[in-house]
Structures are given as C-alpha cells and as structure tokens.
C-alpha cells in the first residue's frame, strides 16, 4: 500500500475515529462527507471499544499478503454505539466464535508489505 493511503486512514485505523451526524445522530465509520440523511454537519466521535459479533467466518484461502496468518477469523462486529465493522478476531480458535459473543477492539499489525515495505497497523478484535 502506498504510504499516503495508509497514513490518511490512521485516525480510523489507530483510534477508531468516526463521525456523528448532527442532524440524525447516525455514527459513520469511516467518517463521511455527506450523511445518508443528506446532512453535512458532523461531530467527531469514536467507535465503542466493545461490541458484539453479528456474523463470522474463518478465511482459509487468503490473499498473498495474509497467507502467513491463515487460517484467520473475520467477523462483522456491531460496536456498542451501533457502528458495524469488519474485523479480524484474533487469539482464539474458529470454534470459539459465535453470533452474539462480545469482543473488544485491540491494536495489532494487519500485514507487512514484504520485508522492506511499511508495516500496516490497525484495529482487530479479541473475545472478552
């Protein structure tokens, strides 16, 4: 990944920064310029640190950059403030996952760009 693209997303990837529409109150992650309701005024907020698994899978055939991590778990998590996020769920076996289980977000390495490129960090989830 070219480093400007990585750098630009840091507030979301590192700190789960989101935007809340001042009109309808919906929290957008990542932040948007226009809300689904049409309004354009937002205030900065964050995705809750904990959430619930809405659906999950285990990726066994991975893109090249993720092959070393396979098999790895992916879930759609609904954070406590309603935001839905696709995230890896790590430090657990596939059998430990279930719809409705609680998770919390942690800071992890997502993948490395080969031996010489940048190291991509961001959020993942672990079971609580």
């Amino acid at each position, binding site marked *: 990944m070219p480093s400007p693209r990585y750098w630009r997303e840091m507030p979301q990837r590192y700190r789960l920064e989101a935007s809340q529409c001042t009109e309808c109150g919906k929290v957008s992650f990542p932040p948007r310029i226009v809300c689904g309701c049409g309004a354009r005024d937002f205030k900065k907020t964050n995705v809750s640190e904990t959430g619930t698994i809405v659906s*999950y899978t285990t990726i*066994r055939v991975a893109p090249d950059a993720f092959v070393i991590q396979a098999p790895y778990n992916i879930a759609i998590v609904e954070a406590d403030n309603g935001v839905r996020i696709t995230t890896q769920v790590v430090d657990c076996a596939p059998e430990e996952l279930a719809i409705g289980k609680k998770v919390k977000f942690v800071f992890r390495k997502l993948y490395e760009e080969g031996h010489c490129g940048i190291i991509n960090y961001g959020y993942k989830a672990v079971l609580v």
Partner: protein
Amino acid sequence: MREVAVIGIGMTKFGELWTKSLRDIFVEAAMAAIDDAKVDQIGSMYVGSMTPGLFVGQEHIGALMADYLGTPSIPAMRVESACCSGGMAFRAGFFEVASGHTDVVLVGGVEKMNDGADVTYALATAADQEYEVYQGVTFPGLYALIARAHMHAYGTTREQMAAVSVKNHHNGSLNERAQFPREVTVEQVLNATLVADPLTMLECSPVSDGAACAILAPLAIAKKLSMPVIKVIGTGAATDTLALHAREDLTTLKAVKLSAQSAYKMAGVKPTDVSLAEVHDCFSIAEICIVEELGFVEKGKGGPFTEQGHTALDGKIPVNTSGGLKSKGHPVGATGIAQVCEIVEQLRGAAGKRQVKDPKIGIAQNMGGSGASSVVHVFKKE
C-alpha cells in the same frame, strides 16, 4: 425508445484456457456472435471486464478488442462494475440501440484469470479496500458472512446450500462449454476443503478464463433474420453499500431486489411469469439469497426451495440451467453476457439436453461485489 432484440450470441468454453490470450478469447466469442447474427458490420462495442489490469496487466481493452476484431475505428469502451461488468456492458449497449443512435452493437465480456495473478486479492478489490480488504477479507469470506447470517436468521442449512452446487453441477454436466461439467453429491460438497467457513471449495465458483458476446439490434432488423426473435423487454440496475457490514440486514441483497423490481416493471412481468433464470451463484448462498430477492420464493425460504428441487431443470422455476457460475465457470467480466447466451439459447429452443420445456420469458441476473451492484435483464421470445 426502440424495441431491442438479441440477434447473435457466442462464447468460448470456460476454463483454464492456457494457450489463449485475453484478446484471443474475446475475439473468439465475438466472431461466434457475429457469425450467429449474420451481420457484417458493428456500430459500436462495450466490453465488460472487471480487472484485466490486475489479471494480465492490460487496461484500455475497448480499443484493443476493436482492433483485434478487425473493426479498429468503431466506438469501443470497457465497462467495469466488478463481477457484473458483463451485465452492465449489456445494459449500456441496450440503451445505445434503444435510443436510436446505433443499429448494431456488440456487447461482450471477458476475463483472463489464470495468468498467474493473485486472484484472491484481485477479486477482493471489488470490496471496500480500506475497511474490508485491509483486514484480510476475501470474497468467499464475505459470502460466508452472509451464509452464517442467513443460517442464523432463517435456519438455512449447509445441506440446503450444498443443494445449489449439486443442482448447478448437474446442469453443467449437460453443457459442453462448462469448466467443470460433472456431477457432485451433497456429501462431496460438504466434505470438500473449507475455503471460508462454512463454505467449501465446491460452494465457490472457480477461477476461469472465458469470454462471451451478444449482438443487439432494433426489433425491425431482428425480424428480417431467420432466427427466432428474442426481445430485451426489461433492464434494471441498482446498487447497495460497497461494504457488507454497512447493510442493515446481511441476508438482504437490496440491489438485487431493486434491480429486479425495476426490470420487471419495465417488462410488465411478475416473478411468476418467468420461465427460467440465470442468476449470479458466485457462492452457494448467493443463489439462495437471489431466488428470494427475485421473488421466486419468500424471504428466508430459498434454502428449502432449492433443496426441494423447485429450481431444478424440471422444477417450478429452473435456475442456472447453464450450470451457473459454479459449474460453467466464472470469468468474472464474461459472466453477465454468458448468462444472456444461455437465456437466448433456451428461448430459441436450442439448449439441447438442458432445454427447458417451451420457455417464454427468461431473466439474467448479474451481480458485483458482495451484492453492491446488480443488473437484471428480462428476455421474451417474440
């Protein structure tokens, strides 16, 4: 708008076409369609292709294909909408003919996926790069998330999903152009290697090379030809959030529903009027969701509906008589046009062993990403 008909179809065999290049397979399919239509001139061309840049390092394939087809001066462009690039190319061509601007338009689709690229990554670029792919999401993974949600919400079983693959492989076994023209059993599907739990290898469409083309013309021209006249009576397209997680309900493919409603409305038909459908079974669960969204069965009942045989060749509403993406193969950009080829063949009564009895109306539903784009076309035998 003028009424539009499909006057010619052609496609390559789908599969691992090691000896043929991207341009070779497109030209092969285009020539077959031109020969089928018996036309000597094409006014313009739309080429559906998802990512020839990532697969073979070639962009700008509209001009490339026009050149190699021996029509180097015609307007030609590539249409991209992930896996429904072909269906969207068809839609673009349909409007060009319907508008009266051009009489004969070639609409095609092509993908060359077996030339050594990181296919899993290339396909994943159709998902949200920053908020899905960054986490290591793959397409089997996204549909597995849909599958688990569908199983949780409606009690859909792995056996019901496997029934999609079993049916489509049966149909594909009757199609000489299919990549995997062989029967599979429910047990084989369930016991195959897991790709993204709970989906196994035999629930995922394969990595394919292939091309398909169709020739569109106004009804007046079509009627002068000797072939049965197959009219395009409806087109509908819609989009949904690119990221699966952003949808209110993971089991609802809203773009499919909206595109179908739009196409049905234009065509003046209801789901019960449809004789057969080619749908985007990129994964087993996708077909289950799609038959629900197309209105063939109520929401949540797609699993039992399939398992009970209602979508089989001799069922209430035969779905994917060609073998679908699963058995026929899924060269992504070509798929939407290949679906049209099957519907036209069926409506012409020329589908051989796969022939559905006396079909009147057929639909083709082509989808991109995890359902963020969908396009539906309705065809009617004149």
